């Protein structure tokens, strides 16, 4: 569903991504792990065109989307939960959820509505009319996820969604992700929380210095102490 080939991205003169390729299939959760600053966020940003890749191609449902402006990419069926939440601070919770542009996806029935969202995140219902900027850190994270879901995307990009969340909620989110995948969504999950990633993903990538250095099933990674020590500092 999402296909990234040979991506090279620069910030000014620094070469961040070195030929990254990956594929996320329908119904699959692909986790990306790696230490701080290896380029995980940059990868996500390159996909949604926040950062412009110098070379490489990105395809969504076999359609080339490389270089399109962000809002068009998003409307074609990608949603982003960014690192650091980035909810619209001055808007109320309900407003945050009302503005995303519905994705024009043809692949499956993925209609989301507020009701469904509130079922997953009941706290948000209680905070409906509160200014998002005044939400607690964790509530903001939930809102960021909810905001991504309401547009009904084919592909969901999650950049450290468990950051700052209580264990119970992390667990909840992990379940939600699995459910979404089961419903046919393709999910790219960037995580620091090793356990959560392993539990959630079907397949795991490890990044180091802008390159993919390891790809395997979660179980294999869990058993691979060399990779864990070398690239994840565990």
């Amino acid at each position, binding site marked *: 569903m999402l296909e990234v080939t040979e991506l090279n991205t620069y910030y000014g003169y620094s070469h961040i991504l070195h030929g990254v390729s990956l594929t996320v299939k329908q119904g699959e959760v692909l986790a990306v792990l790696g230490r701080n600053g290896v380029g995980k966020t940059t990868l996500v940003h390159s996909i949604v065109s926040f950062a412009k890749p110098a070379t490489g191609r990105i395809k969504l449902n076999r359609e080339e989307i490389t270089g399109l402006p962000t809002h068009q990419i998003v409307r074609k069926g990608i949603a982003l939960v960014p*690192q650091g939440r980035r909810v619209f601070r001055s808007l109320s919770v309900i407003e945050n959820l009302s503005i995303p542009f519905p994705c024009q996806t043809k692949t499956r029935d993925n209609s989301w509505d507020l009701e469904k969202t509130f079922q997953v995140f009941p706290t948000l219902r209680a905070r409906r009319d509160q200014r998002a900027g005044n939400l*607690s850190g964790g509530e903001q994270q939930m809102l960021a996820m909810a905001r991504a879901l309401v547009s009904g995307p084919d592909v969901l990009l999650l950049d450290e969604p468990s950051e*700052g969340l209580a264990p119970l909620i992390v667990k909840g989110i992990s379940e939600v992700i699995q459910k979404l995948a089961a419903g046919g969504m393709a999910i790219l999950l960037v995580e620091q929380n090793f356990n959560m990633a392993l539990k959630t993903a079907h397949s795991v990538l490890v990044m180091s210095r802008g390159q993919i250095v390891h790809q395997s099933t979660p179980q294999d990674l869990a058993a691979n102490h060399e990779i864990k020590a070398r690239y994840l500092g565990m």
Partner: protein
Amino acid sequence: MAKTVKKADRAIMIALQIDNVDVRFGGLQVLTMCRLSIEAGEKRAIIGPNGAGKTTLFNVISGIIMPSAGKVLSFDQDITRSPAHVRAMHGLARTFQITNLFNNLSVLENIILGLQALTSTKYIFYRTTSSFTELIDNAVSLLRTWGLEDKKDRPVRSLSHGEQRQLEIILALASRPKILLLDEPTQGLSTAETALVVPMVRSLDPSTTVLFIEHDMDVAFQMADKITVLYYGSVLAEGTEDEIRGNPNVAEVYLGLEGDNA
């Protein structure tokens, strides 16, 4: 699982006491009759679901929010109404959940601001900062301790997320506080970087009182002597690691049913 050297010969002093504090935002009651008492030198973790009021509690303690009822005492002194900077002068320092540094200043300048906060140099306007060699040396050596010396002239905004989180903590430590509040110190740090924070806190002067919020249970249990669980603005449970792990309420509202820490 005692992790500190016991200071049995020291008379027990209460570093921080929260007395029935209420905070409300409009119609929303965020803290309700919240009580907490922390001994000097104690390392205390605050955990609790998102939105429980942990950060708000920190804001009350550090003077950023005034409670609508209740009292905050520090070493028997009532500081409920003192402005933030006065509390800091009393030896209270904090970090922020969302990184809050001086982005356009260099790393060194950030530290200097932390160091001189409690000295009288901060009002001097007839000498250049760079002429205070002792101050600079202190700042540099502090950075050296934390392995950031080579970044000292970089503007803070060019540091990586992890380094900024580290600086956030160093800044709070610079003034040698008696009471240190850390709001999710490891949030956003990778496993490797998190591993640096725990010893850093444990190696503080044992008389420093540390109060921290944490969602990573491994970290919380490693760093804390005692843990308080906040739930909907009041204290749900308080105790040692084993007591908390064994508490079914905590397991239900916070840890999740198995209560494991993987």
